Every structure is written in structure tokens, then in C-alpha cells.
């Protein structure tokens, strides 16, 4: 699935209420996910990368936890303060992350079983 398909999937969810007081817009969230550098550390699919940032696709964080991590990262993540990412935008990105489609199951990907098998 490419980014475009993800966007369509995300659009289907944009009306879902986020755990925040804003009417979250997942499509707008995708736009900011792409433009505000989230994918640089977490990947286009929010899959995460071992040395740069964890998986955020279908995040398990609450919105408050998510917002706190943005504003006051526990790690070396670049801080996103209100001045450059308003709460409403953060809410949209959160909605986009929540709306990301479920990834394929590893058991359905035979190539992952020809690798390290022991």
C-alpha cells in the first residue's frame, strides 16, 4: 500500500472523535505528518525505527500522553511546542495516526520466515 492509499484510509476515519476537545481532521493530520517532519524519524507508515523513534502508527498513547511527548519529549526527540504545532494540529496528527490501517500480519508474509528462523 502506498502513501496515497493510506491517505484514503485515513480520510475514511477523519470523522472519528479524537481523545481531545477538537474535531480532529485526519486528512489535515496526514498533511502535517508529511510536512512537519514526523516521518523523518518514525517512517512514512509510522512504523518506527530502532535508533530514531518508536512505532507511532495506531498509537497506543492517549491524546494527552501524545501531546505531552510532543511538548516535553522524554527522549532526544525534537520538541514541538504550541508556537510551531498548535494543539489542534497535534490533534489532527493524532487522529491520522489512530486511523492508519492495520498492517499485514507477519504470519502472512512468508519472506519474514525465510530469515532468522531459530
Amino acid at each position, binding site marked *: *500500500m*502506498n*502513501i496515497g492509499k*493510506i491517505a484514503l484510509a485515513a480520510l475514511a476515519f477523519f470523522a472519528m472523535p479524537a481523545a481531545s476537545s477538537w474535531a480532529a481532521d485526519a486528512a489535515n493530520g496526514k498533511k502535517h505528518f508529511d*510536512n*512537519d*517532519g514526523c*516521518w*523523518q*524519524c518514525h*517512517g*512514512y*507508515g*509510522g*512504523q*518506527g*525505527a*530502532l*535508533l*530514531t523513534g518508536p*512505532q507511532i*502508527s495506531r498509537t497506543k498513547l492517549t491524546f494527552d500522553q501524545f501531546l505531552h511527548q510532543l511538548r516535553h*519529549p*522524554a*527522549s*532526544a526527540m*525534537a*520538541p*514541538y*511546542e504550541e*508556537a*510551531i504545532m498548535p494543539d489542534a494540529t497535534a490533534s489532527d496528527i493524532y487522529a491520522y495516526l489512530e486511523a492508519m490501517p492495520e*498492517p*499485514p*500480519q*507477519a504470519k502472512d*508474509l512468508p*519472506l*519474514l*520466515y*525465510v*530469515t*532468522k*528462523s*531459530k
Partner: protein
Amino acid sequence: MSGTGNVDRRGFLKGAAVAGSATIAAETTARAQTAPAAPKAAAPTAAQMAAETQPPGEEEKLTTEKTGSDFMVDVCKTLGIEYMAACPGSTFRGLQESFINYGKNSKPEWLTCLHEEVSVGMGHGYAKVAGKPMAAMVHGTVGTQHSAMALYNAWCDRVPIIVFTASAGPIEDRRPGIEWYHTVQDGAATVRDFTKWDDYPWSLQGFAESTVRAYQLATSQPQAPVLITADGKLQEMALTKAANAKLSIPKLNHPTQVAADPNALRDAAKLLVAAENPVILVDRYARTQKGVNDLVRLAELLQAPVVENRGRMNFPTTHYLSQWERSGPLLAQADCILALEPSDLFGQLTRVRDQIERTFASKARPGAKVIAISTHDLMVRANYQDFQRYSAADVSITADGEASMPYLIEAVQREIGDRKSAFEARGQKLLAAYKGLADRARAEAAVAWDLGPISSARMYAELYNQVKDLDWALLSDGGFSSNWPHRLWPIEKSYQFMGGSGGGGVGYQPVAALGGALAHRDAGGRTAISITGDGEFNMAPHTLWTAAHHKIPYLTIIQNNRAYHQEVMHIQHMANRHNRGVENAVIGTTMRDPNISYARIAEGYGAVGIGPITDPKDLGPAIKRGLDAMKSGQPVLIDAVMQPR
């Protein structure tokens, strides 16, 4: 003036100078009225004719059968050096000619490189695979300067390379101009901070002794590059039979390596055996398969998890005690940590939060005992800060980790006593945890499986599927691709992984890959693979020409994220820290508009170029095509457009 006919050049110039500007207007007028006469060559004078056609007063000998540079070749041949890599430079013209003719261009064989960083840097990869150094020759001054970063990487990575440079010799013998520019009083000064030893021998006997000494020092632990300056006059001097007979080449003896003090090992063994949760941290420990096997033996004896820092291939990824993915919780509960050849013990035990106020926290639990076995302190210099932050171990053993391991195993065996059943119970828990690691890796690899740009997990899975039945070897580390090779691949043999750059000098990867591939070719034709970042590749794309020219096959997959991605993240971080947003972070950090066509670059250098590949489904077939092309001895490049990490 043209009518004079026999005015020589010097006389013409003198006359012109005297005539001065007053004649210019008149000449211009005359030229406007008549077509210019065809220039005539001035006839030589009788003295000139004599100088050019008659023999000198006494017979001058302009040729010789044997030179100092021939002897220098003899010296290199006694050391068993297989290859001499060089980009040509006139300061070593005598030596180059001797190697390719007198030395029959064999052992060492002359390899043509297009930049001195390649000549030296390929030796970095070669030595890590072959287990012995190759040599490089770099031009005086400018060549040494070009080679400096490659030398620094090899120094930091503790890898031997025998480097020669040259100088034009005494002032009365130098050609004006260029030989002065390319001569330096102290040719090694540029790189002395990161070479183990250097010398500028002033005699051929000195060259022999210094070169053998340099080789011995380079290959003793801790290993590092060395540099010898070959004087231009020594190279080109005629060597008479009588003078040659007086020269001798010392025998190379490989000294034993420094093994640990038995008393210190006994103390270490007591701590390890008594510990409830020991952890083995390993970095640049193993040089050989025996080193790997010994570490497996120690880990199994103790049933202790091994946290691999991937400086070398130290421990099989398929062994259940390979638990580097759990380093956080393991270190947090460890009561005893054994560090084997850590390049940065402080860094391995410390978590840094890189914000305006940097904060540091220990990864290890308070009171944990730390044992370090390392040659780190044997090669520390003052200027470059590669020695890292000071970190005191409770038992600090200055010795070679691999050479000491059999003795540590013996010491642990003596101390085990009735602890065996406790160790077995610990081992069962670690086995269960290991199984969970594999499932977790697969689940995480699946997340961006079908996305384009291609995920690094998908790339490594597709690649392994194509090479699984071959005798493969990775020439790159996985640090810039989430360590997927260590998460997904069964890395079991010592030669299948060779660690990273050491000093982080960008350009290591394509260059070291060339040298590593050469060693794999000579070892029987292993399938050598380099995952090379686009930023790395752009530092030395011409390595592919050297590979094509010398028939060195390997597969390069360009991990093309169209950026110096590490720097993108740094600039994003700074922009956010300053509350300015990340919009401009791409300025100066990305390589877009236009996108670079790596496949076409490869083809231009005589390699096979494939791509760009953007759809993950196309990657497997592209890799298969590339591997097929390699069978004819060609280097192959696949441009894979990929996610950042």
C-alpha cells in the same frame, strides 16, 4: 622584425621590450593594411645545434638496471602484501614502475584507484575480512591529505593498513615547482595523530627495517594504520650489485598478543560466577571464528546474555543468548557487566537526552560491577577525542579480549562450583525471551511492508530471500537501517559481518566495501553485499570503476533516501528547539531536484546499474537480476528508493 630571420627568442623578447608601447600604434596601422605574414620558426644557432645533437663531453649514463625502488619492492614482497592500491602520483613514480615491472605486478598487485581516500579506505574493509593488511601508496602532501579521513576511520576502528607516501628528496635534486609543492619535511605530520607509527627512512636499509617494523606494529593489538615515507632520491638511485649485497631485509615475526593478567581474570571470574544477572557487552572483540566460538562458550558456561554493539561479528544472531535488542532491561537489572573491547564504555552504559540541557543517566543499575577487558588504553592520543569519556571499570584489564578469552573461560570453569543449576534456570528464561524477540521483529517488519518508498525491513527481507542459499557476506552495518540485518538475518560466520566505519567519516561505506569484496573474492567468491547510503556513495562513486576494472564483484544497494538523513533530523531538532518549525530543514541536507540517477552513474563507471526501484514488489526481481550479473565478475548497483531508516 620578421625580416631579420635569425633573431633567437631571447633576442626577440629583449627587442620587443625595448621598443615599448610607442611602436604599438604604428604596427597596428601596418597590420590593417597588409595580411599578417605566416610566422617562421627561428633557425637554431650553431651552439644550439651542437648542444642537441652531439654527445656530452664525458659519457653520461642515463639508464640503470636496478634501482632503490626495486629493493623497496623486495621488502614489500617479503611481507606477503597482496595488493598495493594507488591513485598515481609523481613522487612515487620510481616505486610504481618497479612494482609493475620489476615486481611483475604480483604480490603485491597494483590496483588503480581514482582517489587516495579509496586507496587507503579499501584497505580498511580488506583487512577486516582478510585478517591481514593490504598496502596503499599516496602522493606526497596532496595524496596524504586526501587519504586522511580514511586513515582516521581505520584508526578509530582499530584496523591495520600499510600506507606509503613519498617525497622528492634533497633540494638540489628537486625539479622546480611541482616537486616542491608535493614535498614536505615531515610527510606524516598531517596524519600522525591517527596512525600508530611512521617513519621517513634515509637509507634503503632503513626503509627495509622501518617497513617490517611498521607491518609488525600495524598488526599487533590494538591494530592501526602505519605510514612510511619513501624518499624520492632513494627510489630513483641506481643500485649497484655491491650496494645491493650489503642490504638485508629483516624477518617479520608476529609477536604474541597481550593476554590478561591471571589474577585479574580470577577476580573477574569470581564476580561473573557470583552474579545473579550478568551481562556480556561486546564491541570490537572478535577477529576470527575462534574468537566467536570462544565467546559462545563463555556465554553458555555462564548462561549470560550477550549485548552486541556490532563493532565486529562477535556472536551468532541465531544463538538464544544473543539479546542485544533487550539491552535496556538487561543492563537495568545487571549486577555484573563484562565489557569486551568496548570502543566507548561510557556511551554503552549511559543514556543521553539531547535537549538544550543535556542530561545523562546510567543504563546500569546502581552498584553493578563492571569488568572491562580492552586494548583501548594502549592507543590513546591527546588531540583527537576518539578515546571517549572516561569510565572507570571495577576490574579494568588492559589486554586483548580475543587472546584473553580462553583464559577467562578456564577461570570461570574453576569458579563455577555449585552454580550450574542456577545458571541453567537463568538460561531457560533467556531462551523464552529470545523467542519473543524474533516474533516482535517480524511484527515490526510487517508494519510498513507494502509502503513506498520501500521500508528498510522489507529491503533486508527481500535481499535475504535472494542470498539465503549463497555463501553471502555483508560489507555494511545496519546502523542506518534500524539494525534489521541483526534482527532478521542469521549471522553466524565470522566473515558475514565486519562492523562499521569506526570514526563516522562519511565515504567509508563504498570504499571499505570495495576492499571487503576483494577479500571475499579471493576467499573463494563469496557473495558480497553492501547497503550503502546515498550520502555515503556520493563521496566515492568511482569505487565502482576500480571494481569493474579489477573484476571485483559485489552488490551495492543504494539506500536512497535522497538526503543526509542524520543531518535532516539534526536540523529539524534545532529548528524546533528555536521554535521556527522544520519547513526549511531540507535546505542543505537533501539531494532532490534533481534526483540523482545512481544506476546511470554505475553504468558510467562500467558497473551494472539497476533502478531506481520504487515499488517494493519490484525489489526482489531486481536483486535477483543483480546477483545474476555478479556471476560474470561485475560490480552491480541497485538504486532502491527507500524510507529514511
